[in-house]
């Protein structure tokens, strides 16, 4: 029988929230090629910076709220076509 997820639990807790960057670290991040590339790609970097301050659970809850809006918009489009 395969081990379950419970059998593989680590003994040390994982920190949940992502620590915010200091002003100096934030400035350094904004100067990285990856950050600049993403900004040029059209990604909203203010949103990305905000998300870095949330915990994993908060990020999933935010995704679900937006997903509900997306689903409602798709349903509305389907109704208007029919």
């Amino acid at each position, binding site marked *: 029988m395969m081990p379950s997820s419970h059998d593989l639990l680590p003994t040390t807790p994982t920190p*949940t929230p992502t620590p915010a960057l200091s002003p100096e670290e934030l400035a350094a991040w904004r100067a990285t090629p990856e950050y600049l590339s993403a900004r040029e790609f059209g990604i909203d970097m203010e949103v990305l910076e905000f*998300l870095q301050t949330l915990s994993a659970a908060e990020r999933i809850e935010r995704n*679900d709220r937006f997903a509900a809006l997306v689903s409602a918009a798709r349903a509305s489009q389907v109704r208007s076509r029919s």
Partner: protein
Amino acid sequence: MTTTLDLLQRLHDSGFHMVIVGGVAGAAHGSSFTTTDLDVSAPLDPDNIARLLAALAGLNPRWRMHPALPPLPADPAGYAGFKNLYIRTTLGDLDVLGEIAGIGAAAAVEANSEWRDFAGIRCRVITLDALIRAKRALGRPKDLAVATELEAIRGRHRTSRGEGS
């Protein structure tokens, strides 16, 4: 209103052996791209399928691609030969994937995963590096956009660790 965490809680409580991949993994790593389903990598052996079915009990699980078919079989032996399971539940869509592009089968994905805490629900999530590899391997326009964003997030982690980029 969250449903993904509710679904994760059920999968966790059943002992379902899995690694979160796809859009929810991206969201967990801080991506801004929205996803409407939960993708997980998992071994599709009878024991694990039994845990999956226990987790989905009462959620009216059905085949997402074939909603007119009867509900999912209750016998884990009925899933022999399946490589992926695309499931619709009352808590949202769940894709159980036997292999991930750019990474490999479930064991390889687990080797490229880390534990994350979702408000008390501890689950394995594909690492940021592996998710970037998977997105690049898929190569669709949206996957490449997500990969670009994830690379920026990786730059953030390197910055906070004081590493050069």
